[in-house]
């Protein structure tokens, strides 16, 4: 008897769920959970009133990429989920992410043209759009004003090139052996922006990568020599996990990070006076470089109610929602219409930092943080070369030769 009752209850639940059309949303855990829940409460639920669509946020605390690959393959993925440009390539090619072109054509509130082109391109393969970017980030120089004041050096500014920037950092580093100018994580994810400024692109017209490209070598040596001269330091060497941690420790005067640093500075160094400025220009090319990080909403191709899911997607990427996210200092909107934003003129350091990060996307040689089918495997040899040189184990030439060999092996696989 009990069992029959249970089956009945489950059937009832299934029926009510079908008629209510519950749309499941998958995203990161941690702070995202709080933000998404609040956003859903404020904007999504009221707008969906009477449509019979309900929304459920499913935070994933673990490695999100691994989760979504598993869930998509097993058919248990949520209806809408985060797609990070860094790993989206292989997921979009798997056939389990719904192309959105047809929905966008029908929609009255969300069209392809509404979204910043370069962001949308990161989720487009052969004209098929697989994700609607929700926001983006770029790198900027975040610096500790107190340390520059103490050293009597001018703050980094938008006029700096690599040489003047280096001089300023060296002057700060001269205060004390335990104080450094710049955090130098041994990662292409940060260093790459400088390589781009020098004119490097990850893949040439034949799809090959040449680490002995003069532009790459130039950036590589500038970055590593800063570490060898004691002007910069790897965060791990001062027991920090990343540039933001190093900056918050006040042992390092500057770090190249995105707007994601703001939240952690608020928590870890609430009394620190800091500022943000654009990355320095390369002295010869006169250009800046940068990397764009962007996350989109993707739709599950096997979702039982795609139209309801798209309705929710429209709301998630609406102007009000993006403005709300921006004003809370969380991320930069992906909608073209929000570029001229009164928020950016506000006179506080977080608004100004966000504006700097926003400007970084359109100044100089800016490339998305994604490496085609190779993904993170492409960066790894370079990261190891940076680490080996910065920890004084090998010279730059030997490190790059080894990295090139390893990279060729990755690309032949």
């Amino acid at each position, binding site marked *: 008897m009990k069992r029959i009752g249970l089956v009945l209850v489950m059937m009832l639940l299934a029926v009510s769920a079908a008629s209510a059309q519950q749309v499941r949303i998958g995203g990161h855990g941690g702070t995202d959970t709080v933000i998404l829940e609040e956003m859903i409460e404020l904007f999504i639920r009221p707008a969906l009133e009477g449509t019979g669509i309900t929304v459920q946020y499913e935070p994933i605390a673990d*490695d999100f*990429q*691994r989760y979504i*690959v*598993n869930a*998509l*393959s097993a058919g248990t993925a949520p209806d809408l989920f985060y797609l990070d440009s*860094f*790993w989206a*390539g*292989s997921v979009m*090619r*798997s*056939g*389990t992410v719904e192309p959105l072109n047809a929905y966008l054509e029908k929609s009255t509130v969300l069209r392809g043209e509404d979204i910043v082109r370069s962001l949308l391109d990161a989720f487009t393969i052969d004209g098929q759009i697989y994700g609607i970017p929700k926001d983006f980030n770029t790198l900027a120089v975040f610096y500790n004003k107190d340390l520059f004041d103490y050293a009597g050096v001018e703050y980094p500014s938008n006029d700096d090139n690599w040489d003047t920037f280096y001089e300023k950092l060296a002057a700060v580093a001269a205060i004390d052996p335990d104080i450094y100018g710049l955090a130098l994580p*041994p990662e292409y994810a940060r260093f790459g922006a400088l390589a781009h400024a020098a004119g490097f692109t990850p893949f040439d017209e034949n799809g090959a990568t040449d680490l002995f490209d003069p532009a790459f070598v130039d950036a590589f040596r500038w970055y590593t020599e800063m570490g060898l001269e004691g002007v910069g330091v*790897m965060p*791990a*060497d*001062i*027991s920090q996990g990343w540039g933001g941690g190093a900056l918050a420790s006040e042992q390092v005067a500057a770090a190249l990070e995105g707007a994601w640093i703001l939240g952690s500075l608020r928590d870890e160094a609430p009394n620190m006076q800091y500022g943000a400025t654009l990355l320095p220009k390369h002295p010869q090319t006169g250009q800046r470089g940068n990397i764009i990080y962007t996350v989109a909403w993707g739709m599950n191709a096997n979702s039982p109610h795609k139209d309801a899911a798209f309705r929710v997607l429209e709301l998630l990427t609406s102007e009000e929602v993006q403005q709300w996210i921006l004003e809370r200092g969380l991320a930069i909107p992906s909608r073209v219409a929000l570029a001229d934003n009164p928020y950016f003129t506000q006179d506080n350091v977080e608004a100004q930092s966000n504006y700097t990060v926003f400007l970084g996307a359109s100044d100089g040689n800016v490339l998305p943080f*994604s*490496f085609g*089918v*190779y*993904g*993170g*495997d492409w960066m*790894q040899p370079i990261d*190891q070369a940076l*680490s*080996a040189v910065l*920890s004084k*184990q090998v010279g730059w030439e030997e490190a790059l030769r080894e990295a090139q060999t*390893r990279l060729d*092996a990755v690309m032949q*696989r």
Partner: protein
Amino acid sequence: MRNLSLRRAGEKLAPYVLLAPFLFTLIIFFGYAFVRVVYFSFTNYDLFQQPQWVGLKNYVDIFRDMDFARAMKNSLTFMAVVTTAQTLFALLLALFLNQKVRGMKFFRAAYYMPSVASSVVVTLIFIWFFQRRGVLNFLISKFNEYRNVIVLFLFAAAVLQLLQVGWEKMRKRPVTLMEPAFLFLSLLVSFMLMFAGVRLGFIPTRDVAPADIIWFNTIKTWPSFLGPLSFSVPLGAIMMFNIWTTSPTFMLLYLAGLQDIPRELYEAAAMDGAERWHVFRYIIVPQLKPITFLVVTMGLIGTLQMFDQVAILGAQAPRQSIITLAYYIYTNIFPSSSSPRVGMASAAAIFLALLTFVIVAAQRKVLGSEGDGGHV
């Protein structure tokens, strides 16, 4: 009659019924999974498209992969060093803890702690321990700074001990070289002398630069005279830690084994005038042979499958320095932002299973199995 045969049939069936729940999970989660992995190892499966038969391609590919060769070398080195060290260390610990000393229960619990704590938590502590400005480098710096003092301390203690023992011997009293009461006094006096010496400036401490050993973020290998046989420094750090966390479990096995050795054997040995070393060599080691077989087998299997400590260390050390076979399999199923290579991962998993099997079988040949070791 009929009733009886039915009962007999029931009795015969009973064990299988009782085994069924376990067999069920075994068949589903190991048997079926194993068959699937064997099948996948001959296909190009990527979790999304239908798997296509590619024959032995995956097996050829893994042997061409530089990372696989490194993983293989790291795993084998790790296995050899850790299994040897943890077995010896566990035996020593057990011998020590088998003595009748006051507060032994505390020591037993204390030594077992590293094995009880969660492997993930312990690994996080471990990362902190091996930081460039972490505890280990601090201890090494301190050791370098006070090296003279430590040597002098030991020397002074030895001299004091010899003086005391000599004095007693001259008076024809029966004392051993390590007489505990004298030893305590020697160490205490020596320590006081050193403390005073350093404080008053008679004994200079060395002024050395703090140790700056990079434990993780390095591709350096050690020891250098072994050439290609040497292992990377980060792997060495993992070895040290793994030995520390796994030895106590094996110590427990040895301790149980030691308490099983019949008292008569010791008594007989004492009657024959056997020294400590002889007791160890001719009674304890042979009596513990079945335990040693178990410890070594479990050690070999455990070390060949070592994964968690490498995975948590992750990006802190260059992949080539720490990759093991189990981690290689994992990185192929969940590569950073490219398509899963289930075929290659499965081929590597089958290879690891075969390798484990062969090594354990070889070990069985060398050490002899459980049955024929034991009782003299």
